[in-house]
């Protein structure tokens, strides 16, 4: 008998709203004649979908708060509503809204303006919700695929651009390959437990004892899939090409929503499902984290394309977040949450400056394109400086708080070696971020006129800028938000 | 051991009857089309050309089996075998009659009685396209390739409405087992047979199924893969002798299969439309006696001298069969149940086969784009709607 209780409905509703609004956008686009100019109102509908979903998420928060943050399990344990899911849903919703605001003009300029774009953004966000709240491996897998397939299409959205096609193709092939590994690992977990639920996994591990080869195999293959999704070494090769070829708005969305949701999944699998097998996965993750930091930061040095540079730096950031998970204490988990939050705003901001600077038909891509920006457009240059400082982790910006908590947790848990490695790579990262800054303020170049940015771009620039500063100066409310993710 | 012997006997019987029917279906088709077009059709070999199929078989077997140089040998040879094999395979799950007990042996009339019978038929029929597509590709000929491509697109497209049309009776019967589906259609409702097409309200679904069946079997008006005035002969241009005959057999076997499936799903299988208290047992006997009477009548007014001998001979044989039905109705009920079931099953299937031939004689061929548009813009939504409405009513009743 099919059952759909009010709890199921309450837990599902934000994701459901996103999917329904996505379908509505597609349908309305289909119902009204194509040649009508100005389909901006459809963007409005898509945005209102995010708005309704946010409102429902807020209701969920109020409910949880009234019930002392007790997790709410729905659909026979397939989906859970807890502070953790809420926090990451929030990041996904915010990034979806910001990306939609900046996409309109960008797509018009690229002559690839289709309303499917907004529907796909909504569907991707919907898929991300099931990564954040999924407790059942089948649900997680389908949610992951929903998000990934939406992104495959979004990355290849510039159909006449060869680089966009190539990026989509690479992302699709490698993504499919890594998902194969993930599902292989999940299938072994199912074999071990006889259940697809992550919670059931936790009860089986102690009975099988440490260093069970089969469990080890399952962990390794699952990690291959998950590390791919978060863009960590040694499964990072897709990231630079995909980030570079994708439409810049999509790059921002990919770097934020996909990465945070995948991190949420990684945390959920490692802490809920495999929490009792920590000694098995911790060395693996440590190796991956150090490798990620090394590859991300060293490869970024030699990049001349800004999007590629930011791609490598985002690989490096994945390494820092992994360090927070490895530290494993409460500080570390708060660090992961706050790091991803600050990273979201700074990354969208940095990509947005690139979007704002694009001239008609020519994208700003190489470091030379940024030359003498400080003279020509001091506001953009200052904002870029702010975002880069935040990405590098300098006070008084948001990034500092994230890095501070990560390092604090490493020191607290006595992992001094990792803390030193991390700090070393912060120094390295300063070098390549400074290359951008030097280009902006210390070099001369020809004059080039940029288009006046749209109001959406202005608004999002202001929002991300303010958020980046505010988190750096007044971290207290944001830390409290991060604490929600731990169920406090 | 007993199971194996019974199964072997049944398989042998079914194979014999099926292959004979295949050969004679060709004769029936030529005769029917000839009469539609005011001709006489095959006439020379045997009385009324009755031995024509035999002559055709001998001709096809003794012809030179030509394999052109430019073909892809392996798949060229494989394709007709694949086509025949798959076409004959699906008949194995069709139930021809009720469970009977003869000479103390209890058995179902039908080869295999499996839980997912209808799914197996769908699966095998969806594989059928490989025979044609591979033949078209392996022949290395542009006409063949076009035919193969057309058949691939056409059969994949029409499989969807077909599966959806099948889904509606499945919902009504709540089973995937063909025997159970027939069992749920037993009895009648105020004199109307309790078949899915009548009391199940599947008249629309039945027509959707039959249209899709025409496309799945590549019959006119959907015979685009072999459209002779565009593609010479389509996918089998390069085939000769028994390989050519293989495709021919496959087409007719597929026709028999889809007609059987339509009978089972929509027309109540082996159940008689006449309630047993109204004398359904005698009906088959009466039909045979009437046929025999007609033969005797024509023998008296024979147009040719030969008919004076052959007509009475056939009349005697057919009245003999009628006598067996009478015996079944009054003397030996166990036999009666079996042969009556077979009679009704055969009659329904034959009528549907006749419709296939009739339409071939009547309708022209579709254009290719019309064919595809019809599949996706009419058949698919209509079949979906039919299924949803059926599901809705079933939910409302239960």
């Amino acid at each position, binding site marked *: *008998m*099919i*059952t*759909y209780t009010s709890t*199921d409905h309450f837990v*599902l509703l934000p994701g459901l709203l996103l999917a329904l609004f*996505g*379908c509505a956008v*597609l349908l309305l686009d289909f119902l009204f004649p194509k040649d009508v100019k100005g389909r901006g109102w459809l963007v409005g509908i898509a945005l209102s979908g995010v708005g309704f979903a946010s409102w429902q998420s807020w209701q969920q928060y109020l409910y949880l708060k009234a019930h002392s943050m007790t997790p709410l399990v729905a*659909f*026979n344990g*397939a*989906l859970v509503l807890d502070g953790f899911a809420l926090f990451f849903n929030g990041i996904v919703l915010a990034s979806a809204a910001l990306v939609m605001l900046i996409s309109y003009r960008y797509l018009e300029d690229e002559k690839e303006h289709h309303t*499917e774009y907004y*529907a*796909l953004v909504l*569907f991707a966000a*919907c898929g991300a919700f099931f990564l954040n709240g999924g407790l*059942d491996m*089948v*649900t997680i897998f*389908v*949610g992951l*695929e*929903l998000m990934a*397939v*939406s992104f495959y*299409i979004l990355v*290849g*959205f510039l*159909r006449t651009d060869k680089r966009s096609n190539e990026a989509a193709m690479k992302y699709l092939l490698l993504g499919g390959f890594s998902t194969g590994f993930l599902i292989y690992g999940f299938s072994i977990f199912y*074999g*071990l*437990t*006889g259940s697809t639920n992550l919670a059931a996994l936790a009860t089986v591990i102690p009975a*099988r004892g440490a260093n*069970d*080869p*089969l469990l*080890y*195999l399952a962990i390794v293959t699952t990690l291959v899939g998950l590390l791919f999704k978060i863009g960590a070494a040694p499964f990072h090769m897709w990231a630079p090409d995909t980030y570079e070829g994708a439409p810049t708005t999509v790059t921002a969305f990919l770097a934020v929503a996909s990465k945070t949701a995948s991190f949420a999944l990684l945390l959920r699998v490692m802490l809920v499902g495999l929490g009792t097998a920590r000694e098995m996965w911790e060395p693996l993750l440590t190796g991956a984290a150090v490798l990620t930091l090394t590859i991300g930061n060293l490869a970024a040095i030699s990049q001349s394309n800004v999007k590629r540079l930011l791609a490598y730096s985002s690989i490096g950031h994945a390494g820092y977040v992994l360090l927070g998970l490895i530290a494993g204490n409460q500080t570390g988990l708060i660090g992961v949450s706050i790091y991803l939050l600050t990273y979201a705003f700074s990354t969208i901001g940095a990509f947005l400056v690139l979007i704002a600077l694009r001239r008609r038909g020519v994208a700003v891509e190489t470091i030379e394109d940024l030359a003498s920006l400080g003279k020509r457009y001091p506001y953009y240059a200052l904002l870029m400086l702010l975002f880069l400082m935040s990405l590098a982790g300098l006070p008084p910006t948001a990034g500092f708080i994230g890095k501070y908590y990560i390092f604090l947790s490493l020191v607290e848990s006595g992992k001094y070696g990792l803390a030193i490695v991390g700090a070393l790579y912060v120094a390295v990262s300063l070098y390549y971020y400074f290359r951008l800054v030097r280009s902006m303020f210390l070099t001369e170049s020809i004059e080039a006129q940029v288009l006046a940015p749209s109001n959406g771009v202005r608004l999002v620039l202001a929002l991300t800028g303010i958020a980046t500063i505010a988190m750096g100066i007044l971290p207290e409310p944001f830390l409290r938000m991060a604490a929600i993710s731990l169920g406090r | 051991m007993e199971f194996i012997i019974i199964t072997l006997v049944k398989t042998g019987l079914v194979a014999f009857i099926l292959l004979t029917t295949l050969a004679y279906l060709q004769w029936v088709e030529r005769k029917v089309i000839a009469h539609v077009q005011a001709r006489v059709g095959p006439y020379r070999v045997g009385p009324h050309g009755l031995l024509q199929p035999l002559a055709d078989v001998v001709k096809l077997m003794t012809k030179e089996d030509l394999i052109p140089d430019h073909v892809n040998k392996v798949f060229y040879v494989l394709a007709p075998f694949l086509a025949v094999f798959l076409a004959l395979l699906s008949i194995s799950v069709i139930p021809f009659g009720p469970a009977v007990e003869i000479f103390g042996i209890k058995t179902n009339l039908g080869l295999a009685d*499996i*839980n*997912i019978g209808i*799914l197996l038929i*769908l*699966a095998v*029929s*969806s*594989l059928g*396209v*490989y025979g044609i*597509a591979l033949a*078209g*590709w392996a022949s290395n000929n542009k006409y063949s*390739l076009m035919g193969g*491509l057309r058949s*691939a697109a056409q059969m*994949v497209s029409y*499989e969807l409405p077909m599966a959806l049309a099948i889904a509606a009776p499945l919902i009504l019967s709540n089973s995937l087992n063909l025997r159970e589906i027939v069992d749920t259609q037993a009895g009648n409702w105020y004199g109307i047979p309790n078949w899915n097409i009548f009391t199940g309200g599947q008249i629309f679904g039945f027509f959707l199924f039959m249209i899709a069946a025409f496309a799945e079997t590549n019959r006119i008006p959907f015979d685009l893969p072999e459209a002779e005035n565009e593609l010479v002969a389509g996918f089998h241009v390069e085939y000769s002798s028994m390989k050519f005959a293989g495709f021919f057999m496959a087409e007719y076997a597929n026709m028999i299969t889809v007609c059987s499936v339509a009978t089972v799903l929509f027309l109540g299988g082996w159940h008689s439309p006449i309630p047993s208290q109204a004398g359904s047992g005698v009906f088959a006997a009466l039909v045979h006696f009437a046929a025999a009477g007609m033969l005797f009548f024509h023998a008296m007014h024979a147009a040719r001298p030969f008919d004076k001998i052959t007509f009475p001979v056939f009349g005697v044989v057919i009245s003999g069969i009628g006598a067996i039905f009478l015996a079944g109705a009054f003397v030996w009920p166990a036999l009666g149940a079996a042969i009556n079931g077979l009679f009704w099953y055969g009659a329904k299937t034959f009528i549907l086969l006749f419709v296939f031939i009739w339409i071939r004689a009547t309708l022209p061929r579709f254009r290719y784009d019309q064919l595809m548009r019809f599949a996706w813009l009419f058949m698919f939504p209509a079949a979906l709607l039919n299924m949803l409405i059926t599901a809705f009513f079933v939910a409302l009743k239960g």
Partner: protein
Amino acid sequence: MSGDTFFFYAFSALALLGGLGTVLLRNAVHCALALMTSLLGVAGLYLLQGAEFLFAVQIVLYIGGIMVLFLFVIMLVNLDQASKLQQFGRQTPIALVVALAAVAAIFSMLSKSAVLLPASVSLTPLTGGNTETVANVLFTDYLLPFELVSILLLVAVVGSVMMAGKRTE
């Protein structure tokens, strides 16, 4: 060797050889047919497990639907040039070594480990028909992913229509 064991190895071999053929054969039509063989082997394995519904669906959807479309596309494009191209890069020997090492590692892990399923899980097929069981599980325990798949498929359709659609300027 009992019948079941024999068929298990036969179907597994079919699946594996088909997979190898898909990767190694030169002619794209042969590759597609090898993939079909592989899927057929998997379908056979389903049947051995008593999952007759999955068996039928595997054949109807994968072999009868998707692979036919593959074949359709392959037949339409000209493959003469593609079959003459170098099929693998120069890293083939390294990749081969890595792949074989991975296979060996997985094999040793599987063989060293204790029995796979926990004792609480029954190994015999469920009674009452596989189709009914699948339907029940799908609409109770896995209702959410089942419905979610519909959105996933919608996205896939929208994406393919988008990518294949006419380029309007």
